[in-house]
């Protein structure tokens, strides 16, 4: 960005960001003030036209979300099914790794107790108990991806 703002650029900015300089990019606001001082009539016309549209757009207020929606979102989040809350609680205590380790021990025990059973999958070389717990967490039933 140079240290000057042309009238053409001023018009582009007014059309894009509206008639309130506070909404313009920081870097060009001071330059715009200089253009206004140098070309009050042209810039005034451009800003007035932009402000007129700003006013109309702002006259359409945003509807508030219904209290039903608000309560529903809070209820869904605070009454998660027990398994998901269990995993969250477990992760919070940092026990996810321990449980994953216990699970691995269980697999090993199964190998000893039932050697003739269907061979279990060998543990993945890159298996990370925390990552496993995170995967379980992300698969939690109340948190299904949409």
């Amino acid at each position, binding site marked *: 960005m140079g240290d000057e703002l042309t009238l053409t650029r001023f018009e582009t900015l007014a059309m894009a960001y509206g008639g309130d300089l506070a909404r313009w990019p920081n870097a060009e606001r001071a330059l715009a003030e200089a253009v206004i001082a140098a070309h009050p009539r042209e810039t005034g016309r451009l800003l007035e036209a932009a402000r007129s549209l700003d006013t109309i757009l702002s006259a359409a207020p945003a509807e508030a979300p219904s209290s039903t929606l608000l309560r529903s979102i809070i209820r869904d*989040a605070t009454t998660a099914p027990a398994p998901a809350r269990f995993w969250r609680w477990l992760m919070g205590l940092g026990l996810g790794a321990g449980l994953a380790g216990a699970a691995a021990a269980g697999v090993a025990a199964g190998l000893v107790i039932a050697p003739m059973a269907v061979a279990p999958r060998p543990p993945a070389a890159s298996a990370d108990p925390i990552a496993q717990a995170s995967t379980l967490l992300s698969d939690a039933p109340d948190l299904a*991806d949409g």
Partner: protein
Amino acid sequence: MTRQGGDADDELVRLAGQGDAGAIRALVRAKLPRIFALARRMLGDIGEAEDVAQETFVRAWRHAPRWRPGEARFETWLHKVALNLCYDTLRRRRGPRAVEAPDLEDPGPPPDRNLQARDVGRRVDAALQALPARQREAIVLCHHQELGNIEAAALMGVSVGALESLLGRGRRALRVALADLADGR
């Protein structure tokens, strides 16, 4: 125009990720109005906007335990999720939704009539819905959601120059569509 970072949200998000009901309530009360307004203006339909808002928060709770403070503003992340869901909704629609013509063809008195705020709202909403979605998105993010140009451009995955082009084209179209309202002021 620059909005400050999301430090204030980080602690709430961390607590929400642990299932803290108070933090969840606080986040919903603080963020839902803006997310709902974003979806409402993008979609022009209250029911669809409610669905988008609800799903946005479902994803937020899922993501909260893995939230990394400092990487992004939580509210920006919410906007991104909501926008993606809005576009999913728009894609699911069969063809462009018809603009509600009765709102645009008011048989009442000429432009200098005293329009009620509700009527202006309907007119603006109809004009917004008639815009191409990307122009609508740019205007909603910059004008209504009051995001800075860099944040809005990043959310849309475009350069600031492209954002300005979308804003300019969108606002020109709105100016034409709403010219009678401007004349009456």
